[in-house]
């Protein structure tokens, strides 16, 4: 699995708190090592090319890609991610 951070993703990471950033790192580490890890809830959004992974109960990461290559688009609150990319 290979991930490609985007400018928009990096901007969104910077807005997160230190604790949230630690959780984001943890989720991404899991994702690279095993995208099917149950805690990630890696899923495709309906009617959209985007997918999400779960950081915690409130935060999601939007990604786009296929096979083993994904671009990290944005990390944000659940509602924002689903509104923008769903």
């Amino acid at each position, binding site marked *: 699995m290979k*991930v490609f*951070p985007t400018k928009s993703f990096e901007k969104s990471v910077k807005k997160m708190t230190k604790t949230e950033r630690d959780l984001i790192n943890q989720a991404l580490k899991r994702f690279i090592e095993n995208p099917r890890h149950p805690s990630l809830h890696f899923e495709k959004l309906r009617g959209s090319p985007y997918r999400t992974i779960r950081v915690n109960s409130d935060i999601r990461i939007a990604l786009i890609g296929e096979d083993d290559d994904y671009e990290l*688009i944005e990390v944000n609150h659940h509602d924002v991610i689903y509104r923008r990319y769903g």
Partner: protein
Amino acid sequence: MSLAQLKEEFVEVAQGLLPPPQFVLTPANDNEGNPLKLIEKDIVYFNEQINLWYASIQYPIMQVRKVLEVAYAEDPEYVILLLDELDRTDRVVDLTVAYAKNMLEVPEEIRKIFDRLSKTNRETRRFVHKIEAMYKKSMLRFYRYVLNIKDDLNILRWDYDPDARSYGFGFDNADDLIEHLNAL
């Protein structure tokens, strides 16, 4: 030609490139809230726009290639310094390097420079990997997104946002990714 002149010429060419076309499809729904579907003429239009853009950047890319070739002929070390310097300048330049590599046959001598660079320090390796990744991914990825519309006709609003495009620099090692994110 001095390094400063080379850099100036390179950046000038890079900045002359047109950005990829932007696509915004609206509205997502008709007046009754039913999803609208893309039709064949939309897809034809996308392809035409992309082809036009693709054609429009061919000449600047050839100029980029010439800059690299002239630089190499005069002094290969300059090319290494130039690329190293450009890495710290502007993203558009990175893209140009990638486009130059992607769309034109890369001269053997330039290929050798990249090979040599990749054997040096870590920072340089990362730069080379970035270019390599762009070379392999950027255009294919962009085309694939557009072509995906054909397979996913329910996508009715698709913004091509340049910010939502990777630098082409990917991570398959979690520790490297975390190091990168922590450094932001």
